[in-house]
């Protein structure tokens, strides 16, 4: 049987209805990644499918919500992706551009850290201020960015800060600065392979107590991803990176493409 292949754009409806699988889906997502107009159309069509869902609303047994609340109380939330800290990382990166080679492999990489921390905290505040004019919850955004930048700065400037580098098996390199005292690490990566919209990179703290999700990586900006903060480090943890369905998963479903002992 001849397999008919419709124009990618005509698959937008099927995609919004989750009616694409396998190669069809991959093909449309490749198209979607390059088509701003399609992404906008998908958003509109998703609003329509949301009403199909609302129309099918059916009150579940009360135990459903009770169980979800109980499970949520045991489930760690994924950290927010704050625009401010991501942009400020780029600014800081630009400042130390040309000095990266000197930093490579130095442990701990103290020389650039105070400057980076200062840049992070400062830029986050300024950016949050600018964003605050357009973002609905300006005050909250500002506080979140400041807090995020503060924790990142605390890790980077910690007395026991240690830097690791690792190669991601699917392409790209990761840089991690870890502080055992702060029980946290800062993760950043460069040159990661772009993923289709249905997939994301997810970070994990993998250890004797099981695999804990540590957040999904944000979209790269000019080839740089992060910084991401992962808190709650325990002795014996490894840092893992996997490719997962968008939205992330509670447990890794694919083989780690980066695994670093901490």
């Amino acid at each position: 049987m001849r397999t008919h292949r419709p124009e990618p754009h005509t698959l937008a409806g099927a995609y919004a209805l989750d009616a694409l699988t396998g190669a069809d889906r991959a093909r449309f997502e490749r198209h979607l990644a390059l088509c701003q107009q399609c992404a906008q159309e998908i958003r509109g069509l998703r609003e329509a499918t949301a009403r199909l869902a609302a129309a099918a609303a059916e009150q579940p047994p009360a135990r459903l919500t009770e169980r979800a609340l109980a499970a949520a109380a045991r489930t760690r939330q994924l950290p927010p992706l704050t625009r401010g800290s991501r942009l400020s990382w780029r600014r800081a990166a630009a400042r130390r551009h040309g000095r990266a080679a000197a930093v490579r492999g130095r442990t701990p990489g103290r020389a650039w850290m105070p400057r980076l921390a200062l840049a992070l905290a400062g830029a986050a505040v300024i950016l949050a201020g600018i964003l605050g004019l357009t973002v609905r919850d300006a005050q909250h955004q500002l506080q979140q960015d400041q807090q995020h930048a503060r924790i990142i700065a605390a890790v980077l400037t910690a007395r026991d800060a240690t830097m690791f580098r690792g190669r991601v098996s699917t392409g790209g390199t990761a840089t991690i600065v870890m502080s055992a005292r702060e029980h946290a690490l800062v993760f950043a990566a460069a040159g990661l392979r772009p993923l289709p919209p249905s997939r994301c990179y997810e970070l994990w703290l993998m250890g004797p107590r099981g695999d804990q999700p540590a957040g999904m990586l944000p979209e790269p900006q000019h080839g740089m991803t992060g910084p991401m903060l992962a808190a709650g480090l325990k002795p014996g943890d490894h840092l893992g990176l996997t490719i997962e369905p968008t939205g992330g998963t509670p447990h890794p479903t694919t083989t780690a493409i980066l695994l670093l002992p901490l």
Partner: protein
Amino acid sequence: MLGRVARGDQRAFEAVCRHIAAPVFGTVRAVIRDVPQSEEVAQEVLVEVWQCASRFDASRGSALAWVTTIAHRRAVDRARSEQRSAERERQAAAFTVTYDDVVETAEANLDAQRVRRCLRSLTELQREAVTLAYYGGYTYRQVAAPLGVAAGTVSTRMRDGLIRLRDCLGVQP
């Protein structure tokens, strides 16, 4: 409200659950049909909303669209992993999900009335293609055979149908 959930506010999450549990459960049940499995998947969806609340971006669409997209995707993933696709295809041929089948069990609500009115403005083929995919969880290739048309025609009708539905409902991101 999702902003408060993102900050770990469990009471806010409880309030969100009160709003979304019915559309989430109804959507999942339409696709999976088996009630215990639907409860399990719906619970996973609610926990994912808790876990990923900080990733919700209001500039990219409504909270309802974000939540129901998660719910529908999880439901079809489960349905497709449960059954081999050939088997599902046979079922699609024998089983036509009509909108009335779904809303019969759904609560009478304003959304249902508006959606019903707007679905009437679609051509029969558009309506069948959209409802089979959404409420039946079938792929566009699977619905082609029972509708007796080419897969390419189905994909076009799905898009045209959803655009018409979106415009009729007056929903824009």
